[in-house]
């Protein structure tokens, strides 16, 4: 769970305004933020990453305070976030592999590099310098580099805005794949709402520093081939019934009440009233009616 509560005076194209954001985010969520340029989207990401100090506020990730205006802010080095810059920010003097190795702070980080190169299809390019790569390739390197340290949060600042449509689409697929595989809490800023609708499970709109719309999206519905599809939802436990060696959870997801049965031994830490997220793999989807 991530709690973001930040305030800052900013200068926008239409004069000064006050950014005031209060957000609760479940772990593993893909949050999309859209809004006109100058609405404070990038500033919000930079404050979460620790690159910009807010005027006041709080930042708490899984119970660990990152920032409290009264106390000392955790420096960006300690926050373990991944950040994708609009200009990729690859180190021009290092090869693709060198860029990834620079990010590794431990042997286990280093062990992750070959897998990331494979996932992002960069194996053949690993000895190239960033300067010779195309924009889409550079952004894939940047994404791989951001994932080397297994960040707790991945912050994407309009990462695809400099790319043209077909490459954008492919990068979106990469982002979706990465999110499904690593379940990293992701916050992506984009001025293009349709891009966010493809990827995010929750989208907020920022206007002059305030959240004016906050919507949960139903990701993945209508997709028929499902080699690796997963259901992900969150809700509140209403009731726990014991049925032999199994327990039956009744969960209120807001839209529907869902029943889940699981072995009683695995359910010891669950109590009614708790908010939970849950995940399941889906092998088929049936379309019941076409409107």
């Amino acid at each position, binding site marked *: 769970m991530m709690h973001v509560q930040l305030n800052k005076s900013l200068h926008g194209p239409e004069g000064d305004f006050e950014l005031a954001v209060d957000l609760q985010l479940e772990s593993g969520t893909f949050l999309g933020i859209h809004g006109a340029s100058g609405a404070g989207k990038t500033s919000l990401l930079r404050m979460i*990453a620790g690159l910009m100090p807010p005027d006041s506020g709080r930042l708490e990730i899984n119970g660990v305070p990152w920032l409290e205006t009264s106390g000392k802010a955790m420096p*960006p080095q300690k926050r373990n976030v991944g950040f994708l*810059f609009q200009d990729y*920010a690859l*180190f021009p*003097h290092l090869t693709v592999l060198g860029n990834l190795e*620079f990010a590794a*702070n431990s042997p286990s980080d280093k062990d992750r590099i070959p897998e990331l190169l494979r996932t992002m299809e960069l194996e053949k390019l690993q000895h190239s310098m960033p300067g010779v790569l195309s924009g889409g390739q550079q952004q894939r390197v940047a994404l791989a580099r951001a994932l080397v340290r297994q960040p707790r949060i991945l912050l994407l600042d309009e990462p695809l805005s400099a790319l043209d449509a077909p490459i954008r689409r492919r990068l979106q697929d990469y982002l979706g794949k990465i999110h499904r595989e690593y379940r990293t809490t992701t916050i992506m800023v984009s001025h293009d709402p349709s891009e966010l609708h493809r990827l995010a499970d929750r989208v907020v709109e920022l206007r002059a520093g305030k959240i004016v719309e906050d919507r949960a999206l139903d990701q993945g519905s209508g997709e028929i081939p499902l080699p690796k599809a997963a259901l992900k939802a969150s809700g509140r436990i209403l009731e726990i019934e014991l049925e032999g060696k199994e327990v039956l959870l009744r969960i209120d997801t807001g839209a529907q009440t869902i029943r889940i049965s699981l072995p009683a031994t695995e359910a010891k830490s669950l109590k009614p009233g708790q908010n939970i997220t849950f995940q399941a793999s889906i092998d088929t989807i049936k379309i019941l009616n076409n409107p």
Partner: protein
Amino acid sequence: MNWEPLLLTLKLALTTTLVLLLVSLPLAAWLSKSRSPLKSVVDTLVSMPLVLPPTVIGFYFLIAFSPSNAFGQWLDEHLGIQLVFSFPGLVLASVLYSLPFMVHPIQAGLRSLPPSLAEASYILGKDRLTTFFRVLLPNIRPALFTGLVLSFAHTVGEFGVVLMIGGSIPGVSRVASIAIYEEVETMNYAAAHTYSLILFGLSFAILLSVNLINGGILKRYWR
């Protein structure tokens, strides 16, 4: 042929360049980032040797460090340092005199880098010092090279400052430029020619190499 003035020139230029590098890296890093009101003052002071006659620097240096003054006396008595008419004094004055030639290229180089480069390094867990040496400096190599070479060449070409605070003590402060002046004074044109021609050739070679390397022509051969 007396090689001593030429060797002394090279020794002075090398020492000065090395000291300058150590001084200029933190100074240029601070100047390229700072928004403090003090910055303009420091920036101006660094640039002063570009416009000031070297004799002015030499004159104040002489006044500040002369053993007949309180400060100069204190340095001599307590630390045993004599900066006037000595090689260390010459190095110190040359460092001040060539400061803009080292600071400005590094400062400009650092400012030309996108801020996201350093930020990306911070986010990847690297502290400021690591970021500076492993990310920023390697990406301003041409600027660094320009600074090194220009400082070296500028120190080779020094005359006024040396004359003011070093005099012309053989082996201590009689550098090539001073030697040329003295040879001409004593109508010894042949010796003056030799020194001059060597300095001319050296300066030409140095500046040409900067242009070639930074112009990318030599990049294929020099990495």
